[in-house]
């Protein structure tokens, strides 16, 4: 039995290293292509863009979100904004009614039907060749849209461009941990962009060509992750998705463990179920790296996280067990015995070195992601929050997502 566990352990570690090295090699291959623009840029043509803001009980942030759109460095007559109140029950209506006088803003109210229905209303009302969404909890950087549009201008085969999403508020430990994670996400997304294997076109400001929806149809429910489903559908139909690393969108992240848990449960559930829905694309070389790299990596990471976590739990309970035994035998005196520091007891089995290596590669991903997002090479405290927070929380939402999938239970949005 112990042997089987050791074999699984080593296989998962091997795969984890493979994935990290794969990203690193992709980085080294393409590092010269990563351009970070600082100043303003101009385009030859400014095509008209419609941006839909679906809102469901977002009274606190939606005003600022729309303001950030109005502040975009993009000709006002080329930017159409559609605000869709998806049956909010709070003050969202009041917040968005402040924009009634604006010529380029249209406001719609509808019964609550889910984010994808709000987006589809936006699609119905759209009259432009480009369409985008901006979640009502996110804020666009003034230069973001023009930078994204420059990708479309450069390459007509590009069908969608995703921005770099980073965190705008980081008061709590949980938010700090996410900041590091989002930085890492910028790096991985850029690498997936090079591989043509992006699997999410995030709600905050991904811009699509109208053709995508004309050819492939509108948004679908997609297990509450419509921004993942549309990306899967595009990959299946060989529509190119790019990542514009210097277009920044700032998003509000969950502030507590409970909120984070709900959000991640929805994401992971979406990943599992969209992957099941699109299982026919798995390991088919005609679907490219998306099919042989992105999706298998997602599946492997679910297994690895669960397995490594159960190992940590096993070791921890072993340790606690021995402490209880010592307490039971010798009483309080056993609690104050300091273990003698002796290098002899440092574990030198090969996986110790491999795990150190994986940590280094992950930290590199965070550092470079931060370099792309904030323009500086620097460690931050949030990187140290990341490991404990995600190591101890992610197994729970993973397990719950798998459990829900098996029982066909859909998690709520919030």
């Amino acid at each position, binding site marked *: 039995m112990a042997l089987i566990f050791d074999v699984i352990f080593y296989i998962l570690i*091997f795969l984890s*290293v*493979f994935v990290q*090295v*794969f990203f690193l*090699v*992709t980085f080294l*291959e393409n590092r010269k292509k990563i351009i970070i623009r600082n100043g303003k840029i101009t385009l030859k043509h400014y095509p008209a863009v419609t941006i839909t803001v679906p809102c469901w009980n977002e009274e606190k942030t939606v005003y600022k979100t729309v303001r950030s759109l109005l502040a975009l460095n993009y000709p006002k007559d080329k930017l159409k904004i559609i605000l869709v109140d998806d049956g909010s029950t709070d003050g969202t209506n009041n917040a968005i009614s402040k924009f009634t006088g604006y010529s380029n803003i249209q406001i719609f109210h509808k019964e609550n039907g889910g984010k994808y229905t709000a987006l589809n209303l936006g699609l119905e009302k759209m009259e432009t060749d480009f369409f985008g969404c901006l979640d009502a909890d996110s804020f666009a950087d003034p230069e973001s849209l023009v930078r994204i549009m420059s990708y479309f201008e450069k390459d007509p085969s590009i069908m969608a461009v995703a921005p770099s999403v980073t965190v705008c508020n980081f008061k709590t430990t949980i938010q700090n941990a996410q900041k590091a994670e989002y930085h890492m996400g910028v790096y991985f997304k850029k690498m997936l962009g090079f591989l*043509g294997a992006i699997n999410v076109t995030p709600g905050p400001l991904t811009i699509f060509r109208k053709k995508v929806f004309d050819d492939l149809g509108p948004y679908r429910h997609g297990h509450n992750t419509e921004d993942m489903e549309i990306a899967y559908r595009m990959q299946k139909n060989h529509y190119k998705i790019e990542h514009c690393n210097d277009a920044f969108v700032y998003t509000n992240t969950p502030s507590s463990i409970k909120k984070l848990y709900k959000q991640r449960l929805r994401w992971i559930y979406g990943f599992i179920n969209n992957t099941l829905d699109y299982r026919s694309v798995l390991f088919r*070389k*005609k679907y*490219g*790296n998306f099919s*042989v790299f992105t999706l298998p990596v997602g599946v492997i990471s679910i297994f690895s996280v669960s397995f490594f976590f159960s190992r940590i739990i096993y070791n921890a309970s072993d340790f606690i067990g*021995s402490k209880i*035994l*010592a307490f*039971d*035998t*010798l009483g309080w*005196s*056993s609690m104050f015995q300091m273990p003698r520091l002796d290098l*002899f*007891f440092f*574990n*030198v*089995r*090969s*996986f*110790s*070195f*491999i795990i150190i*290596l994986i940590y280094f590669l992950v930290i590199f991903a965070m550092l470079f992601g931060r370099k792309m997002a904030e323009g500086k090479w620097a460690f931050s405290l949030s990187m140290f929050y990341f490991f404990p927070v995600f190591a101890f929380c992610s197994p729970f939402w993973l397990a719950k997502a798998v459990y829900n999938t098996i029982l066909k239970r859909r998690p709520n949005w919030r």
Partner: protein
Amino acid sequence: MIDWKKYLIVLLITICLFLTAGYVSNYFAGKKIGQLKSIQDNIAINILSSETQFSLLQESSCKNVSASVLSSELDELGRKLEWSQKNSLGSTDEVAYLKKYYSLLQIKDYLLMKKISVSCKVKSAFILYFYTTAENCSECKRESLVLSTLREKYPELRVYSFDYSTDLSAVKALLQIYKIKDTELPALVLDDELLTGFHSIEELELSVKESFKLQEVKPE
């Protein structure tokens, strides 16, 4: 569309990283085994030297002979060997061989120290402790904790611990002498008296003190 060459290169890099990690691991494991061997050799020399010295001088120079090997040295070696076995350091044979050697050294030290204590009238107490690693024996773990605490408290107390499953004739002889069965582990031998099962620190402390007292009475 898919760059298979890249997948192959990444696979090769990953294999190289694993081989390097394996090599580094082996290197350090070798160093540790070497460290264990040198501690053991050191102890062996000390025991042999004390033995020889004792034979040469007989009772004329008790001062120089007594306790040439510290109880803590043997204890530390024992702990390191246990850890090595648990964490599969080096090859199983290698650690098993070291463990056998260690058991033998303990027996030699026991015999020598007993002789010295009688001839030189050194206050001392001896515990032979038998445990098992073959099965999950929580009583054994508790007893080990009790014994290490006692050993720290009474430097004159020498505890010798033996793994029941050690494949060594000298250990088997000990098991035979004290009629120790594998169903009654942990087992302790204190002043030639066999105690089986778990014994608390208070209980053993009393017996150890008793043993010291007997020795104080003896000279009369």
